[in-house]
């Protein structure tokens, strides 16, 4: 069969993710973590995991629940595991962040929250990986975008295992020499596999499909796109290989890291050329806001890649890694996430509310659920604040960073308000809003009514 179903829990994942994003933005405004604290400080680790796990990973998981079936053209396996996975992830990530806060000296919190949170988070991701891996396995041979997702899931598994090891070492529950070596020397691998493999590589793969779909660009597998996958997967494989090298004390790790970095940079360069071709080859002349806002994220990825190469050549990675990771996390990943949410939320809402009515009575278009002119302002403010905060980090100006973060908090909250307005059908012309006496959708939770869905 060709069908893909409407994911029941995707909106709940998105809601939880946006709450974590707002919390993370508030932490930055209040000066909790980097740059007020050092990059290795427990406060910074609490902030990083609020954003990387709470916001970006929940967002990615929710999106994959809806779009993996679209990528492979078959329904999701074990879709009922999505809800328990969400509960485990929210509880686990919250506990993990509080565990880091306890290491920072916050009263009344036990450091045991760290290993407990890591274990529960890994259990949540384990359920999700089972769902996605089974679906992908049954859909072989995989189309190219799905192969990116497969590599991203592999990166997630290794990043989780490394993170779990660190949590047990930092809380004093593990003191095996190998675990301590990994904690001392492997944090950059954990970050590279998490931000680079799981979040960025998966985003790249999904973007190939979603952008061509939303802009009606030629949807064929290009040799260049296959090269991006090969180079990216090879780079991630090399990073994974460094883990056993650390455990056995094998020299030459730097060489492998540099080769992996070069492969990644070339892959990003080819990927960007593909993206330009997709935008230029589109049949839809009017670009919708999600695709326009995505351009800011691509620009951030290009700038971050140029800075990375400059730092690599000048040997100043340790000095410049903070601003670089910020730009990747907020400019590229958060920018792309918010931009695509601006499309996915109305699309899912339309399916929920108006899909069953199609062909029976007049229904609004997906675009009728949003007001682009209003949201475009908030996207501009968001990217402006990312630029300001990035510059502030390079200038080592804490007050400018916090001011930029305040602007970003406002922009993010305004966009959340737009998503809520979409869910409430507030933008739909009143004569089309609720035809046939239907009630509106729940804000975050799936409808348990007997509304028919495909």
């Amino acid at each position, binding site marked *: 069969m060709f*069908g*893909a179903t*409407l994911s029941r829990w995707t909106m709940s994942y998105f809601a939880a993710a946006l709450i974590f994003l707002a919390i993370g933005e508030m932490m930055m405004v209040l000066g909790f973590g980097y740059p007020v604290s050092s990059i290795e400080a427990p406060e910074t680790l609490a902030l990083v995991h609020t954003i990387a796990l709470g916001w970006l990973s929940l967002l990615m998981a929710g999106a994959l629940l809806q779009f993996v079936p*679209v990528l492979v053209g078959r329904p999701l396996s074990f879709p009922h595991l999505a809800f328990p996975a969400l509960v485990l992830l929210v509880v686990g990530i919250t506990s993990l962040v509080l565990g880091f806060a306890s290491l920072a000296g916050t009263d009344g919190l036990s450091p045991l929250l760290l290993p407990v949170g890591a274990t529960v988070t890994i259990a949540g991701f384990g359920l999700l990986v089972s769902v996605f891996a089974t679906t992908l396995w049954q859909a072989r041979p995989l189309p190219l975008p799905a192969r990116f997702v497969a590599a991203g899931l592999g990166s997630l598994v290794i990043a989780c295992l490394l993170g779990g090891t660190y949590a047990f070492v930092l809380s004093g529950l593990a003191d095996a020499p190998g675990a301590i070596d990994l904690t001392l020397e492997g944090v950059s691998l954990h970050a590279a596999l998490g931000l680079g493999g799981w979040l960025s590589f998966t985003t790249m793969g999904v973007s190939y*499909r979603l952008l061509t779909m939303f802009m*009606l660009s030629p949807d064929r597998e290009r040799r260049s796109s296959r090269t991006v996958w090969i180079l990216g997967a090879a780079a991630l494989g090399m990073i994974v290989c460094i883990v056993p090298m650390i455990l056995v004390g094998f020299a030459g790790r730097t060489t492998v890291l540099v080769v992996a970095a070069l492969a990644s940079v070339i892959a990003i360069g080819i990927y960007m050329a593909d993206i330009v071709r997709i935008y230029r080859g589109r*049949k839809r002349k009017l670009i919708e806001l999600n695709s326009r806002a995505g351009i800011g994220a691509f620009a951030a990825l290009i700038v971050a890649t140029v800075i990375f190469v400059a730092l690599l050549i000048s040997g100043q990675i340790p000095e410049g890694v903070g601003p670089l990771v910020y730009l990747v996390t907020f400019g590229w990943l958060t920018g792309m996430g918010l931009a695509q949410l601006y499309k996915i939320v109305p699309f899912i809402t339309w399916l929920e509310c108006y899909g069953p009515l199609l*062909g029976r009575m007049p229904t609004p278009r997906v675009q009728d659920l949003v007001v682009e002119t209003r949201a475009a302002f908030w996207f501009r403010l968001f990217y402006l604040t990312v630029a300001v905060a990035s510059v502030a980090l390079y200038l080592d100006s804490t007050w400018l960073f916090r001011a930029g973060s305040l602007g970003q908090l406002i922009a993010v909250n305004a966009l959340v308000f737009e998503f809520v307005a979409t869910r409430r059908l507030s933008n739909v012309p009143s004569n089309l809003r609720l035809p046939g006496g239907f009630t509106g959708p729940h804000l975050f939770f799936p409808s348990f009514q007997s509304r028919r869905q495909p």
Partner: protein
Amino acid sequence: MQPAESEELVDRIRDTLRTIVDPEMGSNIVDLGLIYDIAVQEGGLVRVTMTTTIKGCPATAFLKEAVQNCVWYVPGVEYAEVRLTYEPPWTPEMMH
């Protein structure tokens, strides 16, 4: 049914299907090129072959059902059958 009558029925069905607007594209499914074939057989049996812009699109079942409903209510149609296909896959060049 005479060939001329068949042709006229196909035209009426095609016109009716123009009322179904793809929610994402904002154009009707006929002009988007999603209707590959409309075949009229003896006794008012109509077979519609259609596709969607992307395989696995979550709106697929809604679009298919909308087509079935619309065709069914066209005068002269006694039975409507809708078949979904991705051979050939839809491309933007198929838009009219």
